[in-house]
């Protein structure tokens, strides 16, 4: 069908040709040539294949060449030939032979011939062709002509046929033509000037004031088309330098006003709109000029609004294009929010249009609005979602662009997953590049947490087959993981990459060898690099089994020939690191495979890899050194060359020098300051060898050719020390032993002299980025220069948001319902529902909309901390307040009254309103004290009816009785005995520094006795409450383990020795502020765990401690009860502490013996009873037969008391039977006999643990 379409017209022509040809003959002088052209067109039209077309054109070109060579051919014939030539050129064929003829044609008198010549040249001549100079003459002639048509055609040709060199030849003439009588000539002259400006750049304008004036003059031309052409020039100028034309803003504004008002002649009306092209150019111009310029912008608002309204009069494309351009301008210049909001209803017209073109423009308009007024977007969420799922690729892309622009901390997750989804679907290279950049940028900016970041970037890395990802972001990933204190993050990323590694290889195993290669080829190099780094760096977190698997898989990867050499060097590095760990584990198995690998790599193309393999080969002989060079998890440690390496070297050589009576070593900087040194060196070079050595120190003679150039200069400086000290034994003699310590390989191989000194953190490939300072914040990576610009804005955000928050807390009625996030979303939904009438909404879409538009509706995107604050205040309203006295009172005992809860609410309201202001904190605390009174009275009342237990419990936990008495408040004391008063006195004596006000409310706080930062009860001023928990006279038994210590905070815990029967222990949890500034809002939560039940001595049972503010040098303590639920290996209590944007996770390691304690002695009957009941029996057979004494020895050496502090041994029937355990939950029974130990427990895991433990002990014993 397609061929018939193009065929039909020709048939039509053929059938009519007989009729038509005579008329052609009449009008044209040579009809035969015309027929040649028709023939050509017809043949091309009929050709079915590319080859056929090619053949026809080739023949035609030969024909053309022939006609050109005939000198006698007429001008008309030549002209027709040129047209045929153009046709050939249009189809993509080179026609260099005709250029000269076209040039000749431009000299012709006949304007048609002239024009044809120009047309041919402008179409066929490539850029900057040498013939352009030849054309100068004829074009100049044309410009000077009297015929304006000739001038026009010359000017038209000039737009194409001028280059930098020939411009000066035309310039003056063209400037002259700008004031020509005919508007059409003026217009073309202006356009030509525009073209010249583009070619020459700014130099033309700057050089020539006359030109500048001329251009401004043309703005006032009485013919609008000339002015319109001039606007194009100014639009171009505005993108380059705003300053030069900023003074013209009022002129442009008035021009736009006149155009929009319809002052132009009727011929400029296009579909009802007055010269839309001019309007759009003017709008673009204004947006360039008004960007960031308040004054200029204010000029524009009125006319923009007017233009907007005018454009809406005609609902056609021209009108909409002006509408969009106006919105775009409004959002680009200093925004006027009411104006922008007034545009929104017009956008809804675009978005709801049936035609995709208009929808596309609606999305585009939203995209430009979202940067200025994100909350306005909310009402269109369903339209956006719809176009996201549109089948129209263009529309979809634009919508993704919109998504990208409206990303904030709330919706980053869903948006990024959408983008990645799109990334996977897309096949277009350019789009992928764009998406990759967008995703990484978003991840850097808005990443909600580290795990998410790791996930996102590693997914990208994994998918990124064509290396679109900026390597920087991959290295950022490494930086993030390595600088993270939390071991879980490291473990997580390890697991992530480990599973990927396994996956790849598993897939390969299923496929044939050919597929295997392909699959590995598909793996992006960058991914392999990062994977190998992470796996090797953090393999120590896991057992050896992983280690060897990784090792072998990485070795497999090395076999792949398709990998880049740089990638191989990463893998090699990883393998070296792994082998250093394996060396520790004495795994000799891998050694052989390493050797093979090294030998293979020695012949590698890459020098780096050669170097590494040589190094490794040597290093393998010194496993201890290897593990020193590649320490575990030391990527972020600073290498202290100055103090460790240099000093030790220096000391060493000093010692040597002394022993040998040589002159002393002069440090580098001192030497440099003495100007005579050079002379000395020269004059004494023969007699004084040491000086010679010094010279060498500066300018080492590189003996080894293969020395790695990449090695850091600092290492180079070090090289000669080892080289020359080893090689030149006379100069600085070093005995063998010391050489081994400093540089083992001196004797063996010069190449390796570098190795021992190479810096473990800067592992020899210097590609790995070295962290210099902390570049990560909660907001993402800020290390790059480009990103540092963003940082101040972001740091301001929380402040602004805080202010917002404060405002929102004040009377809610006066503000719009926008205040509340959720409400707002709902409102939007409602709005939208009502807007769009009976639109049926897919619940999935609704969910998507809520995800994607989360937080968009807020006037400002909220930062993480802000959201946390919000959460906190709302949760405070529900639960009892923190840090009030209530927390220590077990409310389950005292049954809270309404009185109590209202007080709480009051406190909370105060809290909220005052936003933790310090002054107000005092206020709060006063309130608390009042509430204490009421509580106490409550309790007092209850006390009459309830048991005494609650009182004593209260008294145990509350030190507030004392505090009350300080305030001279008549305490409603319950058990206010002498003892308490004593404590009170002591307290005052202990803490003279403390003001009463701090004391009042700080029964949960301790102070430091002296300037010590070691956590120990000896260093604290103990208050009575603590004194009740711990034994003051025997403080030594309480050792405090520090689990976190940084510049601002110390966290520690102390396990109380008392054990209860139900596998429960108590720890005192201590948080101290060791910084100078008060830390507010410390939030500490215990993670729920299968092993433990944690109970805080707090009225609510939530596992969190919240400290509103912790002043400098104060110590907060908290009693935590921990109950063992389940036994297992590595039972750790994990917790998170959050303060001041910091989010740290802490781990308290526990041993089971912390929990287990001796039961009451059980007698034989009971023992037997248990023995029969318990099922988890394990037996350890002794390999040798021992006599009784030996067995006793064994039992003593096993030293079960060591393992389980309180064990109870029973001796029945010549069998040693031991029973340990605690409470009723976990019991273990042993039977020792001559050749085995049998034990039974009531818990499977418990058995496992004891079995392993015993086995280990026994093995070591034997």
């Amino acid at each position: 069908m397609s061929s018939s379409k193009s065929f039909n017209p020709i048939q039509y022509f053929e059938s009519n040709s007989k009729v038509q040809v005579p008329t052609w003959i009449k009008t044209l002088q040579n009809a035969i040539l015309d027929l040649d052209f028709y023939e050509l067109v017809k043949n091309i039209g009929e050709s079915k294949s590319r080859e056929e077309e090619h053949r026809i054109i080739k023949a035609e070109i030969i024909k053309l060449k022939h006609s050109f060579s005939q000198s006698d051919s007429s001008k008309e014939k030549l002209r027709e030939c040129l047209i045929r030539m153009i046709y050939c050129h249009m189809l993509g064929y080179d026609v260099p032979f005709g250029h000269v003829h076209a040039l000749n044609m431009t000299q012709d008198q006949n304007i048609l011939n002239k024009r044809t010549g120009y047309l041919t040249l402008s179409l066929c001549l490539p850029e900057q062709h040498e013939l352009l100079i030849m054309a100068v003459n004829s074009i100049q002639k044309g410009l000077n002509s009297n015929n304006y048509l000739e001038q026009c055609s010359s000017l038209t040709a000039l737009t194409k046929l001028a280059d930098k060199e020939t411009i000066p030849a035309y310039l003056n003439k063209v400037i002259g033509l700008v004031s020509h009588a005919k508007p059409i000539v003026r217009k073309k002259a202006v356009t030509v000037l525009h073209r010249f400006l583009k070619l020459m750049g700014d130099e033309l304008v700057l050089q020539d004031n006359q030109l500048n004036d001329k251009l401004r003059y043309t703005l006032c031309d009485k013919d609008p088309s000339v002015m319109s052409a001039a606007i194009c020039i100014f639009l171009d100028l505005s993108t380059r330098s705003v300053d030069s034309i900023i003074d013209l803003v009022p002129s442009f504004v008035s021009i736009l006003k006149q155009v929009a008002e319809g002052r132009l002649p009727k011929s400029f009306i296009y579909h009802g709109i007055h010269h839309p092209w001019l309007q759009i150019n003017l709008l673009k111009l204004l947006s360039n000029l008004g960007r960031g310029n308040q004054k200029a912008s204010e000029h524009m608002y009125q006319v923009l609004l007017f233009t907007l309204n005018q454009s809406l009069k005609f609902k056609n494309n021209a009108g909409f294009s002006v509408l969009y351009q106006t919105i775009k301008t409004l959002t680009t210049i200093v925004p006027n929010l009411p104006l922008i909001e007034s545009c929104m209803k017009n956008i809804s017209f675009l978005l709801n249009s049936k035609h995709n073109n208009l929808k596309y423009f609606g999305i585009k308009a939203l995209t430009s609005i979202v940067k200025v007024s994100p909350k306005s977007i909310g009402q269109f969420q369903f339209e956006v979602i719809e176009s996201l799922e549109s089948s129209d690729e263009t529309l979809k892309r634009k919508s993704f662009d919109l998504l990208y622009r409206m990303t904030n901390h709330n919706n980053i997750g869903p948006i990024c997953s959408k983008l990645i989804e799109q990334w996977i679907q897309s096949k277009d290279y350019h789009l992928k590049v764009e998406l990759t950049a967008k995703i990484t940028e978003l991840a850097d900016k808005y990443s909600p947490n580290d795990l998410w970041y790791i996930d996102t970037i590693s997914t990208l890395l994994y998918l990124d087959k064509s290396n679109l990802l900026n390597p920087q972001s991959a290295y950022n990933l490494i930086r993030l993981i390595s600088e993270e204190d939390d071991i879980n993050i490291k473990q997580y990323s390890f697991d992530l990459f480990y599973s990927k590694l396994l996956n790849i290889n598993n897939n390969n195993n299923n496929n044939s060898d050919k597929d295997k290669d392909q699959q590995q080829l598909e793996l992006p190099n960058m991914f392999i690099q990062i994977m190998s780094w992470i796996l090797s760096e953090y393999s120590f977190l896991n057992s050896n089994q992983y280690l060897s698997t990784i090792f072998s898989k990485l070795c497999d990867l090395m076999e792949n020939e398709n990998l880049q050499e740089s990638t191989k060097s990463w893998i090699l590095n990883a393998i070296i690191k792994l082998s250093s760990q394996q060396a520790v584990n004495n795994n000799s198995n891998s050694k052989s495979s390493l050797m093979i690998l090294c030998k293979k790599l020695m012949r590698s193309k890459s020098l780096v890899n050669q170097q590494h393999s040589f190094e490794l080969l040597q290093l393998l002989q010194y496993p201890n050194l290897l593990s020193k060079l590649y320490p575990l998890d030391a990527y972020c440690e600073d290498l202290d060359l100055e103090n460790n390496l240099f000093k030790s070297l220096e000391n060493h050589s000093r010692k040597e020098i002394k022993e040998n009576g040589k002159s002393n070593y002069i440090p580098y900087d001192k030497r440099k300051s003495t100007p005579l040194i050079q002379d000395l060196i020269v004059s004494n070079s023969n007699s004084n060898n040491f000086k010679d050595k010094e010279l060498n120190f500066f300018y080492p003679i590189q003996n080894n050719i293969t020395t790695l150039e990449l090695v850091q200069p600092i290492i180079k400086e070090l090289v000669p020390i080892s080289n020359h000290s080893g090689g030149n034994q006379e100069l600085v003699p070093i005995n063998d032993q010391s050489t081994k310590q400093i540089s083992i390989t001196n004797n063996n191989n010069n190449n390796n002299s570098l190795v021992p000194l190479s810096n473990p953190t800067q592992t020899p490939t210097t590609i790995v980025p070295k962290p210099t300072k902390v570049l990560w914040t909660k907001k993402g990576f800020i290390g790059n220069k480009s990103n540092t610009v963003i940082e101040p804005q972001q740091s301001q955000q929380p402040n602004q948001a805080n202010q917002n928050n404060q405002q929102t807390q004040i009377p809610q009625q006066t503000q719009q319902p926008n205040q509340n996030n959720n409400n707002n979303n709902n409102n939007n939904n409602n709005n939208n529902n009502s807007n769009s009438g009976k639109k049926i909404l897919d619940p999935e879409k609704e969910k998507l909309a809520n995800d994607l538009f989360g937080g968009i509706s807020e006037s400002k995107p909220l930062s993480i901390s802000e959201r946390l604050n919000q959460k906190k205040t709302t949760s405070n309203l529900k639960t009892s307040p923190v840090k009030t006295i209530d927390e220590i009172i077990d409310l389950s005992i005292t049954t809270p009254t309404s009185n109590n809860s209202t007080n709480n609410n009051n406190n909370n309201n105060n809290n909220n309103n005052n936003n933790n202001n310090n002054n107000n904190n005092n206020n709060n605390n006063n309130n608390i004290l009042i509430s204490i009174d009421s509580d106490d009275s409550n309790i007092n009342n209850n006390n009459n009816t309830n048991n005494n237990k609650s009182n004593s419990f209260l008294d145990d936990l509350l030190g507030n009785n004392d505090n009350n008495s300080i305030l001279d408040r008549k305490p409603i004391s319950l058990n206010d005995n002498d003892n308490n008063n004593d404590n009170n006195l002591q307290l005052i004596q202990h803490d003279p520094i403390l003001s009463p006000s701090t004391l009042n409310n700080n029964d949960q706080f301790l102070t430091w006795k002296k300037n010590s930062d070691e956590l120990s009860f000896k260093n604290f001023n103990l208050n009575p409450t603590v004194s009740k928990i711990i034994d003051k006279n025997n403080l030594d038994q309480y050792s405090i383990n520090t689990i976190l210590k940084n510049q601002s905070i110390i966290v520690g815990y102390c396990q109380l020795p008392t054990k209860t029967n139900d596998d429960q222990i108590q720890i005192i949890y201590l948080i101290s502020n060791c910084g100078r500034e008060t830390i507010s809002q410390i939030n500490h939560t215990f993670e729920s765990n299968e092993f433990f039940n944690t109970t805080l001595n707090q009225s609510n049972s939530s596992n969190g401690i919240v400290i509103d503010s912790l002043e400098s040098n104060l110590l907060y303590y908290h009693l935590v009860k921990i109950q063992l639920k389940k036994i297992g290996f590595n039972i750790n209590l994990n917790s998170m502490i959050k303060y001041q944007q910091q989010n740290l996770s802490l781990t308290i390691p526990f041993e089971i013996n912390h929990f287990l304690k001796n039961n009451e002695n059980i007698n034989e009957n009971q023992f037997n009873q248990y023995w029969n009941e318990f099922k988890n029996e394990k037996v350890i057979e002794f390999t040798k037969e021992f006599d009784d004494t030996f067995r006793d020895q064994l039992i003593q050496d096993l030293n079960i008391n060591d393992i389980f502090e309180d064990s109870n041994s029973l001796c029945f029937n010549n069998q040693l039977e031991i029973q340990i355990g605690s409470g009723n939950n976990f019991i273990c029974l042993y039977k020792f006999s001559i050749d085995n130990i049998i034990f039974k427990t009531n818990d499977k895991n418990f058995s496992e643990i004891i079995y392993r433990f015993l086995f280990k002990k026994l093995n070591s014993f034997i």
Partner: protein
Amino acid sequence: MIHFLLLLSRQGKTRLTKWYSPFTNKEKSRFTREIGNMVLNRPPKLCNFLEWKEYKIIFKRYASLYFIVCCDRTDNELIVLEMIHHFVEILDRYFGNVCELDLIFNFHKAYYILDELLLAGELQETSKKTVLRLIAQQDAQQENPSEHKVDL
């Protein structure tokens, strides 16, 4: 700014090309093929804009002929679309109910019209009358070469 304009038939045959930005011959034929594939295979009723490299493609189909314009990303697509329409309207006036055939056999005339309309990649004339008058004058000169002065 407009970088180039293509007229393609529904079979992908080139009817007219005009390049305002410098490209090599190889690039030109590659672009023509690439864009032809994109545009001709695009289902109807989708929007008339395409993102392509760092440019934007705006196209419209008139009968069996596709008018394709490549411009900067910052350009307003709708107005470019209108520009295409403007060009077609002028062609229509000039040829009187224009069809593909007219453009095939008078493609140099189409070039002349285009040159009046678009100069150096910018639209320069919005008045149909002006364009048509100019072309008419040139045609008149062609018939009577001796007559040099024609009133506008």
